[in-house]
């Protein structure tokens, strides 16, 4: 399928915008000692001929992700004219390079007038750009836009410079610029586009929520004319809460460690969804998608009395989480009596044994596990601002287990914590890094 591209857009605007962009890109980073001034763009013209785009394949299409393969052809009449000045004295370039590399001039001979700088202005015009290539475009809300050229798209480029009558320099420039442009398509362009796209898509859901809240607030208050522009962050409400609480980190590492085993039978991970099974979870729990929305956050911030309700809602979602692939029965909840002092403090807390589903033989003695169990604590009404709802015994030291283990879907063990996801305010699954993309 091929597309018809309308090439009659407002070119003036586009040209000034891309001039700025190119100016930044060309002069950013460390300047080569070969150049004696910055590169300016004299002229930029997109021409009148549109590129031809053909859709070869669309692999994946959804609200928040897209993957497609395109064929692009461009035989247009656009051109670009650059102006800079170059160092004509190669010895000067040599000295500057050596000084940078050697971090001093100890071994450099003391050059006299032979090192004198001599700069020559250079104007380069790039025209007759002919491109033909296959592009793979991958877009996801989390990662932004990734663009890869499957082949070297540059077919032809015409370089005109102010050294036109000197054939050696002309050829040299042609070669250098061709290499540079190939480099541009291979490395620079994909990385620039990726950076740019990340401005518009967001990997941080919370920020977007706040933005929407702010907008809605402006709409709400527009009648009163009283606009509160102040942003409220979660960390302001509860400054003690780190982004990913250490208790959760420890919990994750415990789970990972429990998998570092030669045993054929391992403990199932109850309150954990592994990434490969995530889509099933999200399909099953439609409630999750519906319930967490902006109005929640609004209420959460504006009205403290609603907070408990919200926290209970969240904990309900979390308890839904315990549903495993095979088992959808209710979880066993058990009260623990460790000692009297603790009980008084935690009399309202409920906890769940990590080992609740395990029935196979293990080398771990029951006593140790019991004393080191992980507790999920329901949010207490007394601590209305505390989001930290999970505690854990820090002294848990897993021993090396050797026990029978049934065939598990996840046979690969990994020490990376992002393989495990969970839901909660402290560790939003949207924030966790996505799995690496398929090799293209």
């Amino acid at each position, binding site marked *: 399928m091929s597309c018809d591209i309308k090439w009659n857009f407002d070119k003036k605007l586009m040209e000034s915008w891309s001039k700025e962009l190119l100016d930044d890109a060309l002069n950013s980073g460390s300047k080569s000692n070969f150049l004696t001034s910055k590169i300016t763009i004299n002229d930029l013209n997109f021409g009148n001929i549109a590129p031809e785009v053909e859709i070869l394949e669309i692999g994946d299409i959804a609200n928040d992700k897209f993957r497609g393969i395109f064929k692009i052809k461009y035989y247009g009449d656009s051109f670009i004219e650059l102006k800079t000045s170059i160092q004509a004295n190669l*010895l000067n370039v*040599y000295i500057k390079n050596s000084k940078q590399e050697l971090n001093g001039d100890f*071994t450099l001979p003391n050059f*006299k007038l*032979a090192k*004198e700088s001599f700069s020559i202005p250079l104007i380069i015009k790039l025209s007759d750009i002919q491109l033909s290539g296959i592009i793979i475009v991958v877009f996801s809300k989390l990662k932004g836009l990734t663009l890869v050229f499957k082949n070297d798209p540059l077919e032809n480029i015409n370089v005109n410079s102010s050294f036109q009558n000197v054939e050696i320099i002309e050829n040299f420039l042609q070669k250098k610029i061709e290499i540079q442009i190939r480099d541009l398509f291979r490395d620079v362009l994909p990385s620039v586009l990726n950076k740019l796209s990340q401005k518009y898509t967001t990997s941080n859901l919370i920020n977007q929520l706040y933005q929407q809240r702010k907008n809605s607030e402006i709409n709400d208050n527009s009648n009163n004319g009283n606009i509160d522009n102040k942003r409220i962050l979660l960390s302001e409400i509860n400054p003690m809460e780190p982004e990913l609480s250490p208790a959760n980190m420890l919990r994750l590492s415990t789970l990972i460690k429990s998998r570092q085993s030669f045993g054929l039978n391992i403990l199932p991970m109850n309150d954990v969804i592994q990434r490969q099974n995530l889509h099933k979870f999200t399909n099953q729990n439609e409630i999750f998608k519906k319930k967490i929305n902006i109005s929640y956050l609004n209420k959460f911030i504006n009205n403290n009395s609603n907070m408990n309700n919200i926290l209970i809602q969240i904990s309900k979602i979390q308890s839904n989480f315990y549903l495993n692939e095979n088992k959808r029965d209710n979880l066993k909840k058990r009260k623990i009596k460790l000692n009297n002092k603790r009980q008084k403090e935690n009399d309202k807390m409920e906890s769940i044994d990590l080992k609740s589903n395990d029935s196979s033989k293990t080398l771990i003695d029951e006593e140790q596990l019991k004393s080191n169990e992980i507790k999920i604590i329901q949010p207490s009404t007394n601590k209305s601002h505390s989001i930290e709802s999970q505690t854990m015994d820090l002294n848990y030291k897993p021993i090396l287990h050797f026990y029978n283990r049934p065939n598990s879907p996840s046979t690969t063990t990994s020490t990376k914590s992002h393989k495990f996801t969970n839901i909660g305010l402290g560790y939003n699954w949207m924030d966790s890094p996505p799995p690496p993309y398929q090799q293209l």
Partner: protein
Amino acid sequence: MREFMDSVLRSFYKSTGWKEDNFYENVVSTSEDFPIPTDLKFNIASKSTDYTATSLVVSNSGVINGSIAYLYSSSPLKDLLGTADISLQEAIASYKVIRPPSITNGQTDLNKEFQSQSLYYGRMYFPGSALEAMVIKRISQSSQLLVKCVSSDKLKNNGTMTFYFQQDSGRFAREFIYSTNESLFGLRCLYNFSQGAERLNTALYNNSSLSLGCELWYGVLNMSPGVSTSMRYSTQSTATGQPLTMTLALNPLLGHISSTYSVKTSANSTFSSRYDFNLFSYDSDLAFGCELWKYKSNDISLPIRKVNPVLVPHSKHSSYDQSVLEAFESLVKDTDFSSVIKLSTGINDRNLKLAWEGKYKDFLISSGVDIRFKSQVPEVQTCGLQIQYRS
């Protein structure tokens, strides 16, 4: 302020009778721009014996780094004084009075037997542990070998070595240079003309010299050539004893001409100017610099001389002339100075370089600032402070 290593090198050359001024490298050193320190630097050095010395440098330019240096010389470094005893004229690079080379025909040197002297110097930088080393070996009365190298695993080929083979016969001095960095070859030579008065032997005392030199460079791997040629005329006014130096340098490849004129107007002031012009691009530049020395005490006796209106025939230079020249020199040498202010400015660069160097208690202090006036608001390009103590 001279770096510790520069002072050591000068002292070594002095003790072995090597004239470094007679090389093309120093042909325009009289009018050369002074460097501005770029960081905060503290240097402690000590001469443990006449043959060995140690130096420790700690500097801060955003990050703290430093170096330790050790050296051994087979010739006693008697001229290397501590900062408490050294005079400011010795410690600070200033106007270089060019002496005509003593052209010997190998007669006077026979009395003094040649001894092969050498200097070994090593310096370790931290962090990064780059190592630099230098070896100087006198081969004969008129030649020496100098090897400089830098070793660090961060560098290409893990380091660089540069070899200098220097020959100096008084009238003619030449150097062969090879650097492993891009395989650079170099040849430098300097020829001193014999003057009319000297040739005819009519002058009792002659203190002017005319030298012509050139340098040739070629980097084999990066194909970068370089050529320049220079002429230097240096003399002393017979009336007042003030030394002056003129140089004219040309780079024929790039069409660059540079002329300088420096004069030590009095015991405590030096003025220098430089004019650059490019034949191909018509670029030109005028730069100006001066040095003002401050006396330690107020009672100074300048050499006030009455000029005899009677013209003396050219051939009859009297010993009186010699005494004037020597009086000026000894005045410069013996006056106690407390500090020096150096100024330099250029039209193209539109900058003002200002440096203050002096002695505070037993410490040598050097500070400077480089201000650029290119935009509306003057901006400080570099500034720094160096403190040196050695015993």
